[in-house]
C-alpha cells in the first residue's frame, strides 16, 4: 500500500489578518503560516494504516516557510519519503495546484491519496476532489476512519449530527480527511533532530503552472458585524460578577 499525503500551509487565524493595498488579497508580509490542521490528521491516518497493514507513506508539500520542519516531523512519525515542490506558488489557485500535484502523482502511482478535507482559505474548490478528477480516481471527503479491504477501503464519512456512512471505495482513490482515528501523535524534538540528520527531502521544481480555473475577486474585506457583542471590561472578578448577573437575568440561575 503506497499512500501519499499532500500538505498545505494556511494563514494562522490566531494572528491578525490584514488586506493588502490591492484590496483583493491578504497582506502576506505579516502572515504567519501554519499547517492546515486536517493535514496533521491525514498524516496520522496514513501512518496508522501503515502500522496496521504495512506499506509506504510519502508526504509532500509545496515550498513554504516551515515546510522542511514539517516534513522532518512527518518522517519522525514514520513517513518514508519526503517531497518538496519548489517554485513560486504564492496566490496560486487550487485548480493549478491540483494539476501540478496530478503530474507528481502520476509518477508516484499511489494506491491512496489522503488530503485534508478542506482549508479555510479556499475559493475555487478543494484540491482533493480536483486531484481525483485529474487522475481519474474516485473521491470521498469528510472521512474520519479508514479500514483496508481487498482492492478497496471502507471509509467512514461524516454527515451532520454525528451520522456516519460506511462507504466502500475502490483503489486507487483520493480521500479527504476530517479527523484521524486517533489524535495526531506527538514526537519529541530530539527525535526530529535525529531524523534531520538522515532523512532526505527530494526537491521537485515546478516551472510553468497553468493558472486556468481560478475565480476572480473584486473586493476582500473584514466582516462588518451587524451587531457586535457588548464587551465586558475589567478584571476577572468584575467580569465574573457581570456574567452572573446576565445568567440570572436569563432566569437560568
Amino acid at each position, binding site marked *: 500500500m503506497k499512500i501519499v499525503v499532500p500538505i498545505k500551509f494556511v494563514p494562522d*487565524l*490566531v494572528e491578525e489578518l490584514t488586506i493588502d493595498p490591492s484590496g483583493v488579497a491578504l497582506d502576506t508580509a505579516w502572515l504567519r503560516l501554519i499547517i492546515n490542521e486536517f493535514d496533521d490528521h491525514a498524516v496520522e491516518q496514513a501512518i496508522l494504516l501503515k502500522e496496521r497493514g504495512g506499506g509506504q507513506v510519502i508526504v509532500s508539500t509545496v515550498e513554504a516557510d516551515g515546510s522542511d520542519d514539517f516534513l522532518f516531523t512527518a518522517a519522525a512519525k514514520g513517513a518514508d519519503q519526503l517531497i518538496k515542490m519548489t517554485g513560486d506558488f504564492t496566490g496560486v489557485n487550487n*485548480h493549478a495546484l491540483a494539476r501540478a500535484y496530478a503530474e507528481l502523482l502520476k509518477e508516484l502511482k499511489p494506491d491512496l491519496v489522503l488530503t485534508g478535507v478542506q482549508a*479555510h*482559505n*479556499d*475559493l*475555487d*474548490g*478543494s484540491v*482533493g*476532489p*480536483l486531484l481525483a*478528477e485529474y487522475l481519474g480516481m*474516485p*473521491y*470521498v*471527503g*469528510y472521512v474520519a476512519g479508514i479500514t483496508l479491504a481487498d482492492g478497496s477501503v*471502507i471509509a467512514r*464519512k*461524516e*454527515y*451532520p*449530527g*454525528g*451520522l*456516519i*456512512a*460506511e*462507504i*466502500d471505495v*475502490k483503489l486507487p482513490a483520493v480521500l*479527504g480527511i476530517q*479527523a484521524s482515528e486517533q*489524535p495526531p501523535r506527538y514526537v519529541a524534538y530530539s527525535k526530529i533532530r535525529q531524523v534531520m540528520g538522515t532523512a532526505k527531502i527530494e526537491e521537485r521544481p515546478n516551472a510553468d503552472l497553468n493558472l486556468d*480555473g481560478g*475565480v*476572480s*475577486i473584486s*473586493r*476582500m*474585506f*473584514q466582516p462588518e458585524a451587524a451587531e457586535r*457583542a*457588548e*464587551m*465586558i*471590561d475589567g478584571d*476577572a472578578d468584575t*467580569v*465574573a460578577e*457581570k*456574567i452572573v448577573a*446576565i*445568567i440570572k437575568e*436569563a*432566569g*437560568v*440561575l
Partner: protein
Amino acid sequence: MSQNIFVFIEHVRGQVAEISYVMLAAARQLAQNTGGEVAAVLLGHNAQDLGKDFAADRVLYIEHAALAEFTSDAYRVALAALIQDQTPRAVLFGHSSIGMDVSSGLSAKLGYPVVSSCRSFTEDGKYVSQICGGKIMVEGDIPSPTALITMLPGGYKAEQGKSSQAPSVTSVAAPALDGLRVTLKQYIEPEAGDVDIAKETMLVSVGRGIQNKDNIELAGELASALGGSVCASRPVVDQGWLPTTRLVGKSGKLVKPKIYLALGISGAPEHVEGMSESDVIIAVNTDPNAPIFNVAKYGTTVDMFDLLPALTDKVRQAR
C-alpha cells in the same frame, strides 16, 4: 446556455437537508437578477415526492436505483450529464459533506469554475464568500457562462426556500451508471450520549483555548455549579478530551440553550452553525478580533483561566 439557477438538493435517508432550502432561497434572489428560472435538481430512487415543498419553478428529477442514497461516483456522473446538457447560469451545491464531494470534481471535468464558501449574493448578482474561519469576506463576479458554487448556511432562511405549492416535476433520464467505484455499505447511528446537549438550557462550551484534557475539569466545575453541561468545539473532541456526543456545530449537534458560554472558541462558521440560535451567547476570548464576538451578545477578552475560578465561585455564592 440558459439563465436558470440550479440547486442540487441534498437528502439522506429520505430527509432533505436544511441547506437545500437555504440554497433555494438564495437561488430565487439570483434568478431574479438573471431573469431565469429556479430548478431544484433532485436525484433519487422513488424520491420525487421529496420535492413537494420546494420553492422552485420546477424540479428536475433523475430516477435510478444507484441514486437512492448519495454516493460521489454515481451522483457525479448523473450531474455531469445534466449540467452539460442544460448549461444553467449557475449550480448551487452545499459547502457540505455531500456538495463538496462532487462540486470540485465537476468543475475539473466540465471546465466550469467553482466558487467556494459562498454565503450570499449581492443585489447586483455578485458572490460573497466567507473564508479564513469567518475573518475574511470575498466578493466578485460569478464566472461565466456557467458557474458552480458551494454555499454555506447563514445568508438566507430555510423557510424562504419552502412553498406550500408543489412545483412541477420534469423527469430527466439517468445516464448509464455502471462501473461505479463508490458504494454505500451502511449508515451508523451516532452513539447515544450521557447527556443530550441539544436539550440543555445552560451550556458551558470549551474550545482549543482550554489547552489540555485536565483543564476540562475547570469548565466541568462551572457547569455543575450552574446546573448545566459541558460541550465543545471540534478540536477538543478530535483530541479526545470530550466524547463526540458533546460536539456542537456542522458535524455535531445543533443547540439552542438559554445561555451558551463559549470559552476559548474562535467562532469558525462550522461552529457557529450549531449554536447561533442560542438565546444569549457569552464569549470569552483573548483575541479581540475573534469572529465569535460577531455572534455573541456579550463578550470579554479576559483570560479564561483567570475568569473560570472567579466565575465558579460567584455562581456558587449566587445559588
